[in-house]
């Protein structure tokens, strides 16, 4: 028998209503250790859920637990939570070293420990060399790192990241995603990453929680949503049209997709037909593999359906 670690965040029938607007509607889920992606379009309820877990707003009904404690005990719990907002929030005239030391103290660390933690965190986020420069002179990528660093400086058990790659160029985005993975794998800090960029979530997260219009659409391990499909993708170097014709003559339905051919739900016998068609069409095979689902497919598939657990 293995001991399963208790979930870090638990929502049980969580509902939040703002003056007649239902922001969260009877949402229940649990988030454990690791990196979790929180997905949903604008107004889906992502920020409301984060604000409830941080104890900034009370739920209208239901229960929210963070680190095993009710979010009504928010002040104590917040000492072990970190938050990186999406918007700008950094003091332009302060150096990163002074700002992080100050934020560590505000989180309750004694001054000497705060200074040490600030230096360590700046080193881990790649800002150590620039730590005495005023933040106002930093690039967008460096500012995003300072935002992440201030969320980590007090060594939280759990950190909320709101659109952490917003405004970053491709290289900066890669670096930020690598830092987020490092946050969990090397620092042991679990992460809830709110994003509308599915590629970022696919590449970074272990599991996802998907909201739509305040309701929970999906939650679970990322691999269950992005696993192999029953579609086979064929890519050849040349003679693609000849190959398609050869396959159709053998009764195999094919369609063009992304520079290759796809075959829906093939059984074992189809693979023989593919082999023979490749020989007949003299098409050099570059790649044949099951097609993986993308998170975008999940959104498309659930666009017109009811949220999970509801009819």
């Amino acid at each position: 028998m293995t001991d399963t670690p208790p979930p870090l965040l638990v929502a049980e029938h969580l509902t939040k209503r703002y003056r007649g607007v239902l922001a969260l509607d009877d949402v229940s889920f649990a988030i454990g250790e690791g990196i979790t992606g929180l997905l949903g379009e604008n107004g889906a309820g992502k920020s409301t859920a984060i604000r409830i877990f941080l104890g900034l707003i009370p739920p209208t009904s239901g229960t929210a637990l963070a680190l095993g404690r009710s979010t009504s005990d928010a002040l104590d719990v917040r000492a072990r939570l970190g938050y990186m907002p999406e918007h700008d929030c950094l003091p332009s005239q302060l150096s990163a070293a002074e700002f992080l030391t100050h934020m560590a103290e505000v989180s309750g660390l004694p001054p000497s420990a705060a200074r040490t933690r600030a230096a360590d965190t700046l080193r881990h986020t790649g800002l150590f060399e620039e730590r005495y420069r005023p933040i106002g002179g930093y690039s967008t990528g460096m500012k995003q790192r300072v935002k992440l660093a201030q969320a980590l400086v007090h060594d939280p058990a759990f950190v909320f990241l709101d659109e952490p790659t917003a405004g970053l160029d491709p290289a900066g985005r890669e670096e930020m995603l690598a830092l987020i993975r490092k946050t969990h794998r090397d620092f042991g800090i679990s992460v809830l990453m709110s994003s509308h960029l599915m590629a970022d979530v696919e590449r970074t997260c272990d599991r996802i929680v998907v909201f739509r219009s305040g309701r929970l659409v999906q939650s679970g391990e990322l691999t269950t949503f992005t696993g192999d499909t029953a579609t086979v993708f064929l890519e050849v170097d040349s003679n693609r049209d000849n190959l398609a014709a050869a396959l159709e003559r053998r009764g195999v339905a094919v369609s063009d997709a992304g520079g290759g051919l796809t075959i829906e739900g093939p059984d074992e016998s189809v693979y023989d037909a593919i082999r023979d068609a490749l020989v007949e069409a003299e098409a050099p095979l570059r790649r044949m593999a099951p097609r993986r689902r993308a998170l975008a497919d999940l959104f498309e598939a659930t666009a017109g359906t009811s949220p999970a657990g509801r009819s």
Partner: protein
Amino acid sequence: MAESVQAGRAPGTVFDIGYRSYAGRREGRGRGRIAVFKNGVRTALGLGRGGRAKILPWSFLAILTGIALIMVLIAGAATRFAGPAGAAKMDLPSHVDYYGIASILLFVFAALVAPELLCRDRRERTINLYLVRPLTGTDYIAARYAAGLAVMLTAVWLPQIILFLGLTFDAAEPVAYLRANWLDVPRFLLAGLVLATFTTGLALLTAAFTDRRAYASVFLVGLFIITAPFTAGLASDIQGPAGQWLSMFNLTNIPMHVNDIIFGEVSDVTKDAPAGKLPAAVLVGWYLAWTIVPGLVLWARYRRLSP
């Protein structure tokens, strides 16, 4: 063996010791409040910032202290040239008059300090980072108020302390001067507290309603400076009880009337103010209203603040 390992290393190699979790003491909300207070004092005085951030606050502190030094020099010169008895007859400005003389400068100083404490955090949205930590809006504003008050107390007390030390050591018999005038110390400390709480509350309240420091500063300077001649002129035209009450709205005089009550004598700036003839309880009550109400409004504005 060890030597051979050492020989293989490049000189000055820094080893990455990896991430170290923090297992030390967490001091919670109290430490957070102290941190916001400390940061407020540093922000107000430009400490840890560039030279430009220091110019205004330190210039004002220098000028306020300079006024006290000039008063000491004048008192010293008068004693030397006219003798102690002659100097006493001159009725030279002293502790009771200092706050009146320096009041406009102190109000302008408060108008510069308060926006630094509140506007920047809201404009740059840094306040959102405070409110997601173990700190409430009440904690934040209380710590910022305490920081503003500490800076204002420095500005009002430091010159008075210098003035007292100067007058004491400049006296022909310092010990005798000390025995005769020691009560001035609690008086100027209390009167300074009265002035500092009044200016801090009003200045922070104004700063709480805009995130632009310049707007807050200009509004405050205008409020303090314009109300003085406006109300004084109208009060002298109207006269009678209505004039007295109108004179109460001279914002710079509100703490000065309490200053006069504390020292038991009328200072130069309030001697012509019609409100000075009102009962002491009314003047103190009016001062308390102008100090407590802004504080409560400020608290109400921040206590439910969330990112």
